[in-house]
């Protein structure tokens, strides 16, 4: 039986073009272009290269509003076999808890899965929490912050990049993997596949199909709320001016104020 891979992708505002409404302090979504979260393109590529090697089935899932359809088509055109957009007004405003819950419930409904792949984080919420949350809901192991993801005989091997080194791990499936941004080179969409993708289409699942009560998801299912937003204004410093003619005085001051020391301990 073919290995089943599920890839979780999110559509996000193009981070280079974020415009903030000065009054509401909210993201002005009408001004921003939406793109597929870049780390999720790396997640899909990791899945597709396993597919190249062993012939897996790759299903892409995304929870989001209807405009995420462009991301669905894009993933199919890159080589995914199936795409499911989980979309319902009840899912709106979710924090990481109900997002993980909704995606985990979707995956349970899909049924069989061996490997679930997500991005390390989304560029708009940048928590990195949704992947591990899904793994916990499904009670499966995980490999986070991975590069060089490989599959062999029922095991996933990945390299985890930590602050102080690289950990190489091997975990039996089922397992959830989150992959690093730029950890591979995502293949392009081909025109032929794009035409096929549009013809074939993707599925849209609503809340009944996912099988969760409305009060468990979206805003109502979210433990956290944003109370307020402030713009970050750093306090300004004195900015005492020196120039090439009086650097000696500056050096003296730095040493006398013990900003610099004769010997660093």
């Amino acid at each position: 039986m073919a290995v089943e891979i599920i890839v979780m992708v999110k559509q996000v505002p193009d981070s280079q073009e974020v415009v903030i409404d000065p009054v509401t302090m909210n993201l002005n979504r009408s001004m921003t272009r939406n793109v597929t979260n870049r780390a999720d393109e790396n997640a899909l590529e990791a899945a597709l290269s396993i597919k190249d090697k062993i012939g897996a089935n790759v299903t892409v899932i995304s929870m989001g509003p209807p405009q995420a359809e462009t991301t669905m088509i894009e993933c199919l055109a890159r080589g995914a076999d199936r795409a499911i957009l989980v979309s319902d007004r009840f899912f709106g405003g979710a924090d990481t808890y109900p997002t993980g819950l909704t995606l985990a419930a979707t995956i349970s409904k899909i049924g069989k899965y061996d490997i679930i792949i997500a991005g390390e984080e989304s560029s708009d919420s940048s928590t990195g929490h949704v992947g591990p949350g899904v793994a916990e809901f499904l009670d499966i192991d995980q490999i986070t912050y991975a590069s060089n993801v490989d599959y062999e005989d029922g095991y996933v091997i990945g390299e985890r990049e930590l602050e102080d080194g690289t950990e190489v791990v091997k975990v039996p499936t089922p397992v959830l993997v989150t992959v690093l941004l730029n950890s591979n080179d995502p293949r392009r969409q081909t025109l032929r596949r794009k035409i096929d993708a549009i013809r074939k289409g993707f599925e849209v699942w609503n809340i009944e199909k996912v099988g969760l009560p409305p009060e468990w998801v979206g805003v109502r299912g979210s433990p956290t709320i944003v109370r307020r937003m402030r713009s970050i204004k750093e306090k300004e410093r004195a900015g005492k001016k020196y120039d090439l003619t009086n650097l000696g005085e500056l050096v003296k001051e730095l040493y006398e104020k013990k900003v610099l020391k004769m010997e660093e301990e």
Partner: protein
Amino acid sequence: MAGIINATPVADPQQYKNVFVFLETREDKLLRPALEMIGVGKTIANKVNEKLYCIILGSDLKDMADEAVSYGCDVVLGAESPDLKTFRTMPYSHIVSNFVKSEKPNIFLIPATRNGRDLASRIAVSCQAGVTADCTEIDIETDTRILLANRPTYGESMLAEILCKRHRPQMATARPGIFPIPEKLKSPKGEIRINKVKIDKSLLKKEILEFRKKEAIDLTAAKVIVAGGMGLGKPEGFKMLGDLSNEIGGVIGATRPTADMGWITRDHQVGQTGQTVRPRFYLAAGISGKIQHIMGMKNSETILSINNDPQAEIFKYSDYVIVDDVYKVVPALLEEIRKYKKEHVGIAVENRESS
């Protein structure tokens, strides 16, 4: 462990008290972010007259537990087993969740390191808690004991204050390098509870085949940082900064585009997507002062910047400013420093001998 569970049934906040922190370790040693957690955890606990509990997992906890107490931890909750020497998601999340479920903390803080984030989200799901990721400011409302978790958003331009009103514990991960390490106590007093545990085989399926340690530059521990930006104009600029940095016992820092250009390796990068630093002295050479860089170095005690544009943003965040070409200023500064040191080296030695 969780299964598909609902977050809505909420706990009675009155049953939850004290502040818990998770202490990250390597090879049975506390990491720097662990000490930062003790600092911020203790500050919050003190504000509401509660205790600070530290959770430590490992294969030999004695020294780490003593160290945690010496930094201000009131109660150490430890789980000890040879299988816990290295972080692994399944056994760690299982044990930490059980601590949380039995001890019922009001607040639980975890460092926003890679392993910290790997763990935090699983605990939050398992315990049906709310969690705020990557906080740079953490406070508590004293009357309600509600955690005020602040995290940067929209490319660090905004700070979002996030609350978790009905769920307990209130969890947050804290960005490394932001919160200061507390002073050691003169006469520390703390209770140490270490349990030897046996881990179920089913939780130990992840095999760690290898750990390739990298000799990373730890900018977070540096007292002096000499950082360069695109104003250097070429990779050789970092060599010039290296000479200055060597003279004053510093470490090299860099902006993201200089690392993108390959002028310097990524582990020197300071900022939102690099390291957060708080040295005693930060010298910024040819750096414009974009917010993503500022976020990583604004807590430096003293900042000196060199930029040939009198309008450069970085000047607003600087204690000392030199408006000129880096290639003129840096060699001249180095010369003045050498001169000063030569004139004063005798005095420094005398001072040390007499003290």
